[in-house]
């Protein structure tokens, strides 16, 4: 029924996809030789590598199995665990920020490029200052996105503000891009009365209804199947928008990753999965996380289009996400993007990653592979950015961030009643009773309780 209501118009997109020549890996269902669809994937290297189909079967001999006809082969052949060559990584800019030869990407103009760069710098600056503020003991916790600024900002830039974000916790750049202010970030981290979350969650658990950014929860990958449910709602409402959800490489080991991918495929849900493969899940390296060729290859098994992209290349991320979004909305189907990147920072302020990974490795990624300076070189080469702009931007963002922190630090904590509100839509009788008893106890032992929480 859903298929009938929202008939896929894949051919509409075909030309566009051909033009970009992105190495999206086709899902098995599209792989079947239905001529016109097949031809556009045939030439891609990735497809050749992943093409595990058997070409030697006799077309006359098929088993009419539930789920479609399957050919027979007389050869006993196991599908190998991985192909000899790993799936290549789509990039637009080389390490020096030069456009690759023969590159095909979604063009962006000066205004967009400058804004993207500025937001990357803002994120970087915010991370540096907030990290220090945590070190000074002024906030209880922080978690940076260092090294992943391009995935954050470029993916956000490629989306529409109507797209619904189901974030993990290392994508504050998406919220920043959508207009969440440095002041609002600071309010959340200080858990004051201006925090939308009313001081109930640890720092960095942002959320904003206005920005279509669902509130972050700490459990890993739980947001993936939720994004599919939201995407299904968009589909039923006929909206020209998709759901976008993020997770890390560690998250792909969770059952919810499987649930999300499989549900998305089966429901034909317009959802884009963006996996930030940054090499490390706290201290666990990807070699101890999975044996597959990363995450990109998992898409095909679920029947989902997938692409591997250089996550430190803002233009590649932008192009892939932009195109994935079009596929998701126009074809009403999910897309998986694996962004190869590196977590330059520690997992969080509770972690010291030099205990489990070489400092040289961190330094290499920080200095040689920094996505911000790489994008900057491209913007500069276009004549869109000067040293003066750079100085002004950094100084301004620094000032704004410091100011935001001062304001947030001085702001009042949320009132005690906010501890009991919102458990349900209305205060239940047991909570009424508990609040009453607690208030009596506070009256009796005021020194047992923080003095900065208004009663």
């Amino acid at each position, binding site marked *: *029924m859903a298929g009938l209501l929202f008939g896929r118009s894949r051919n509409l997109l075909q030309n566009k996809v051909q033009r970009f020549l992105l190495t999206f890996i086709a899902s098995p269902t599209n792989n079947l030789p239905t001529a016109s669809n097949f031809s556009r994937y045939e030439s891609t290297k990735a497809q050749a590598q992943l093409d595990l189909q058997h070409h030697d079967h006799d077309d006359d001999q098929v088993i009419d199995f539930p789920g479609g006809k399957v050919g027979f082969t007389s050869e006993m052949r196991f599908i190998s665990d991985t192909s000899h060559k790993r799936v290549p990584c789509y990039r637009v800019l080389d390490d020096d920020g030069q456009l690759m030869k023969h590159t095909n990407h979604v063009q962006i103009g000066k205004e967009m490029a400058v804004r993207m760069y500025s937001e990357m710098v803002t994120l970087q600056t915010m991370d540096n200052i907030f990290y220090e503020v945590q070190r000074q003991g002024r906030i209880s916790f922080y978690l940076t996105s260092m090294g992943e600024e391009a995935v954050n900002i470029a993916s956000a830039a490629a989306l529409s503000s109507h797209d*619904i974000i189901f974030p993990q916790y290392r994508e504050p750049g998406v919220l920043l891009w959508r207009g969440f202010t440095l002041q609002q970030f600071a309010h959340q981290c200080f858990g004051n009365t201006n925090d939308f979350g009313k001081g109930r969650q640890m720092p960095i658990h942002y959320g904003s209804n206005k920005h279509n950014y669902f*509130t972050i929860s700490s459990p890993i990958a*739980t947001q993936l199947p939720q*994004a599919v449910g939201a995407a299904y*709602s968009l589909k039923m409402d006929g909206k020209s928008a998709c759901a976008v959800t993020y997770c890390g490489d560690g998250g792909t080991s969770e*059952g919810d990753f499987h*649930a999300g991918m499989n549900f998305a495929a089966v429901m034909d849900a317009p959802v884009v999965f963006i996996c930030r493969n940054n090499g490390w899940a706290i201290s666990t390296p990807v070699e101890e996380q999975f044996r597959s060729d990363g995450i990109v290859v998992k898409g095909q098994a679920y029947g989902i289009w997938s692409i591997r992209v250089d996550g430190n290349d803002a233009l590649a991320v932008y192009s892939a996400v932009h195109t994935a979004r079009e596929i998701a909305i126009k074809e009403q189907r999910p897309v998986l993007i694996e962004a190869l990147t590196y977590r330059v920072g520690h997992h969080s302020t509770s972690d010291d990653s030099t205990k489990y990974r070489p400092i040289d490795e961190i330094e290499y990624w920080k200095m040689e592979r920094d996505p911000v300076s790489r994008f900057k070189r491209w913007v500069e080469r276009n004549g869109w950015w000067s040293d003066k702009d750079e100085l002004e931007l950094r100084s301004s963002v620094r000032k704004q961030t410091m100011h935001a922190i001062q304001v947030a630090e001085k702001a009042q904590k949320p009132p005690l009643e906010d501890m009991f*509100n*919102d458990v349900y839509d209305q205060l239940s009788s047991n909570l009424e009773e508990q609040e009453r008893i607690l208030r009596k106890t506070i009256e009796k032992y005021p020194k047992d309780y923080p003095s900065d929480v208004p009663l």
Partner: protein
Amino acid sequence: MSSCVKRFGRSCASLVSKRGLSTSCIQKDAAVVAENGVKSLNLYSAINQALHIALDTDPRAYVFGEDVGFGGVFRCTTGLADRFGRSRVFNTPLCEQGIVGFGIGLAAMGNRAIAEIQFADYIFPAFDQIVNEAAKFRYRSGNQFNCGGLTIRTPYGAVGHGGHYHSQSPEAFFCHVPGIKVVIPRSPKQAKGLLLSCIRDPNPIVFFEPKWLYRLAVEDVPEDDYMLPLSEAEVIRQGCDITLVGWGAQLSIMEQACLDAEKEGISCELIDLKTLIPWDKETVEASVKKTGRLLISHEAPVTGGFGAEISASIIERCFSRLEAPVARVCGLDTPFPLVFEPFYMPTKNKILDAIKSTVNY
């Protein structure tokens, strides 16, 4: 107190016949048309009717889960896909955490997401989504977001031959979770009214359906769209010597014990809790203050069961009025055992004995 509408003999096996509630008798035909917009329905048909009404009255309502498309393994979703289309009533992959996670996302977009978990025994893969996600969705966002449109229906409890994995009563796990509601109906009429309330309540709810009663319990059910209040217990039988508290299928066993006790001159008050969290302490408290005695019965294992919570709360409130220790007649602390089910169960005579010893304490 609900009156005993019809009581008559039946040809079912003896074990089965013990499950009839006086307000919900057995009939051969699931649905017999009666007068005045009231139909005699069994419990699964009442659920089915509620789902029809929910989908009919709200275009943003969806019903989904394993095998719901063809009507469900217990037939609760019969006819829904034909009537409302496969885009609103659909099968999902066999993945409970996916079903609930999907439901949360759907509900968070302003829909009524009515998810089915095929057996409560299989709800545990979805535990994280329920406990860490659905239950905290509103609170953690400062009421910016909520998934209040989510209702998780799931059949629970003994059925005579279900063994470990088709018999469990896991309600207590969910009663430890602020942010969700837990509701269990005792009969067809209750099931329809409570389910419609749950679906329309702005909070995520786990709705446990007593699967033993799906076909067995038959009751006159109003055909119209009606809702029964949540977090309100009901005194379904009045008495003055002892208060019995239960929910779901166990109430029919408890009622039989009440009838037998009556023959011995003991007057029992029977309360259907209906909503386990947030629960109606006041009704139970008022009753125990009157009777001075409390017995709680549930199929789930006694240790850490919700009976323990009721017991503790009532002792806190009624200590000076109690004339005997609170009694609990519950499932035993073993996995649900197939062959030994008759030994495991909190049967009528176990309850009757506990009533007598509590009254004679």
